């Protein structure tokens, strides 16, 4: 079974601030790590491989330093890692990102299964997975919490729903996104870590992917962030006077006025 896992590198400890000039989010991070949901995606891929055999490829679109997260994926057991990296990809929204990833998947040779995390820790849109599946013409099941069975050309799984879960069967090749409830990701082994230090990370740029410059980066991104603002936080204090009974009445009235009650 050929499995591709989409991985995003996210800041490990990060502070989100809003640039007062541009109104843009500035995400400054010290450490970086594999997006937690993508760790679950990778773990599930490794478990499927251990059970059914096959190959796990970790794929990431990002700057050169995202290779570190791919190295981590190799330390955990991924067979190969591919970084889709080009200065032209900078500023890609979810649509442009999914487009680049779809080109990567085509170049990689179509996998039987693509596993994504449900959403990223920093962007939290949850859109790249389904968009990628759509672009590749693959069926997609989101929020998978358990893979029940993988058969010839299909798989059955549970997806989380508001109350309880759905049992869904999907044809393969296909794509899924997973939630953190699906597994507890393993920790790397010392041998894996040492091996990963030496492992070669394949890098494909826009040209190698045959990307149309108009469809990637900020140019290829239909999404425009017009403005981001921070909610004003204000606190007011008012001391009530009078008997306890009248104070209670007044509190209830004020809570009603503020539509809290």
């Amino acid at each position, binding site marked *: 079974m050929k499995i591709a896992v989409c991985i995003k590198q996210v800041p490990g400890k990060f502070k989100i601030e809003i640039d007062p000039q541009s109104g843009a989010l500035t995400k400054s991070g010290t450490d970086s790590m594999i997006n937690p949901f993508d760790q679950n995606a990778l773990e599930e891929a490794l478990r499927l491989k251990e059970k059914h055999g096959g190959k796990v490829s970790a794929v990431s679109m990002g700057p050169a330093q995202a290779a570190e997260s791919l190295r981590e994926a190799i330390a955990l057991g991924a067979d190969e890692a591919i970084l889709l990296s080009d200065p032209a990809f900078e500023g890609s929204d979810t649509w442009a990102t999914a487009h680049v990833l779809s080109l990567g998947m085509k170049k990689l040779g179509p996998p039987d299964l693509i596993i994504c995390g449900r959403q990223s820790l920093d962007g939290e849109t949850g859109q790249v997975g389904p968009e990628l599946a759509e672009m590749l013409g693959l069926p997609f099941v989101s929020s998978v919490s358990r893979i029940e069975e993988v058969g010839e050309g299909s798989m059955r799984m549970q997806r989380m729903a508001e109350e309880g879960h759905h049992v869904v069967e999907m044809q393969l090749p296909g794509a899924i996104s997973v939630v953190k409830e699906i597994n507890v990701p*393993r*920790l*790397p*082994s*010392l*041998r894996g*870590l*040492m091996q990963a*230090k030496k492992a070669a990370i394949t890098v494909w740029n826009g040209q190698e992917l045959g990307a149309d410059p108009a469809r990637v980066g900020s140019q290829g991104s239909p999404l425009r962030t017009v403005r981001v603002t921070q909610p004003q936080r204000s606190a007011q204090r008012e001391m009530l006077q009078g008997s306890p009974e009248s104070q209670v009445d007044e509190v209830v009235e004020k809570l009603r006025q503020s539509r809290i009650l």
Partner: protein
Amino acid sequence: MEYFLSEQQQTLKGLARKIAEQRILPVRAELDEKEEFPGDLIREMAASDLLRIFIPEEYEGLGGGSLDLCLVIEELSRVCGGVAICYGANALGALPVIGYGSDEQKKKYLPDVASGKRLTAFAVTEATAGSDAANIRTTAVRSDGYYVLNGTKQFITNAGEAEIYSVVVMTDPAKGSRGASALIVEKGTPGFSFGKKEKKMGIRTSSTRELVFRDCRVPEGNLIGREGQGFIIAIRTLDRSRPGVAAQALGIAQGALEAAVEYARQRVQFGHPISAIQAVQHLLADMATEVEAARALIYATARTIDAGAKGFAEEAAMAKVFASDMAMRVTTNAVQILGGAGYMRDYPVEKMMRDAKITQIYEGTNQVVRNTIALEVLKRKALRE
């Protein structure tokens, strides 16, 4: 301080820290409270190769030395001294086989130790024999290709959980310490059972039980080294393992220091954090200095061993005594800095203080280990005269 660790050692230390913080930290209080053996954690460490590091490469290990082992024990102990000793005692139990076992014994046992499939334990102590190892009463009488064991070992770490036991017994009681031998006894051997689980002050997650032998027949081939070599195997094994106990003490102290620093910065009294009070600052300064001094001594000792030094009993003893006494002082001061909170089990430092105490006691009480140091010091002087 820069200790110039190799790339692999830095990776190993980072990995051990990750396991400690991600997996051990969330459960350490519960493990202590329930006195449960951390079997799942040990399996996870095995999957991460941590049980492989001290096994020679030819037996599916990674061939790491004393420093590698110390780094892991230190990082585990920084979070939980109890889980760390379950790990450390497993290395201890394998040491007699690594150092003195036959190739056949190594082939039979060490790959399983490396993979974590089977845990080990080391057994010397008895009701009448601890520091006085010559007073061992458990006997092994040779008969028809077997040794028949009778007696009871006491306070054995990992007892019941381990599958492979390196046991020091008397094969010739008349010869005293020269009549001791080391044998491998497997769990499940008829006549081999476990006594009650001890209720301890600290390191409560670890299993401490008796090994009871009643006409327990062990194949002759399980003799480690030669007959009569048991006492020397025990002494050399402890020389080799004492830096590990020292590293355990070091890690516990490091954890306590960090907890004390964090608390001192948060706790506000008289309008400012108590870290602004010089009396507290000086306590922290002494704690940090002592922790670093112990680390330097332990790493230097481990490197001496890894460089292939013939004798290192003195260095190992110094590391163990210094680090464990230091850990007791540092953890006690951490509790002091946390004050009333420190005395409560909701905060981690009282456990660290309880865990630290054992490091002054096991693998030789600090009093008897000081004898080893004094003996070497005096011997050197005598040789010069």
